[in-house]
């Protein structure tokens, strides 16, 4: 196995999935956002986005906070410290592999 293939194999599989990569990249640039923003930016449907978020939450990369904006329920999402570290590691490895 050559070094490039090895580096690809070392990539974080949770982040490497295109949908989740999009979510993590968007969250990395901000402090927090709501579900609607991610839905608008990723153009995913609610179900797909929810399942990706659940996977990221399980991995400890995303924090989900349920709150209200006035009387409207709001789901706030942010990247955890370990999520930030994981994404930075992923970027480094991807650059190295390419």
């Amino acid at each position, binding site marked *: 196995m050559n070094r490039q293939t090895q580096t690809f194999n070392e990539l974080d599989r949770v982040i490497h999935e295109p949908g989740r990569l999009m979510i993590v990249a968007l969250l990395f640039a901000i402090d927090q956002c*709501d579900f609607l923003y991610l839905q608008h930016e990723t153009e995913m449907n609610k179900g797909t986005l929810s399942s990706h978020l659940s996977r990221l939450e399980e991995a400890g990369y995303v924090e989900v906070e349920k709150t209200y904006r006035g009387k409207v329920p709001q789901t706030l999402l942010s990247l955890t410290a370990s999520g930030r570290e994981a994404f930075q590691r992923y970027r480094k490895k991807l650059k190295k592999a390419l």
Partner: protein
Amino acid sequence: MDRVESLLKRPKAYGNIDGTGELGMGFMCLAFAPLIWLQLHTPKDSIWNQKYVLFIWVGLMVAMIYFGTRAIKNHITYPRTGFVAYRKQNRIWTAIVASVVSALSVVGLVLAAHSHRHIVMPVFFIGLFFAAGYVFGIARSGGVNALFRWKWVVVLAQVIGSLLIALLPEDLSAALAYGPSVPAGFSASSAGAFLLWLILYGTLLLISGAISFSLYLLHTQSPTEEANEPANADVQ
């Protein structure tokens, strides 16, 4: 990899997706213009030439822009396309860069006005400088995107407008600012040209902001109550 990098830039562009940045800047320029006109046309000891009036004016202007922007974001943008809180670090750097750029442009204007060259030309350079700032804004919000291409017309209008003001006969621009309170070191023509440029730049930004806002409303759907709620109960 490029796709990842472009995704990282998208939240920055989202800040002005509704045109509030341009509307705020345009309002600020147009709100400064009448104050400067009043300062030039009234005696030096009049209320309009007192420093505290400038502070009150600026305070009111900043408050109106801040609360106006928040109202648009809270009632229109966030319910339509979602809420974003930016990292504090980014906001501090943006504020620092904006302050330095503004301070440098004012210092540039003062220095240029004190020089013995053509007194109205500094306005053209200030125009170019601010047009460059607008170009930076377009690049940040995805200048290659077809939705933002019309903004290059605004850049052209800013440059041509600034050039036309710089080429105006001096007595014409002086007529606008001729009064008892032209500051020392400035001629009535340079003050008049600056006043005209403020009105031009403010109007162009307001038009640009209004077009951005209309396009935003046109290309986004109005919200439904459950739009912000994830369908999957797993996300708690």
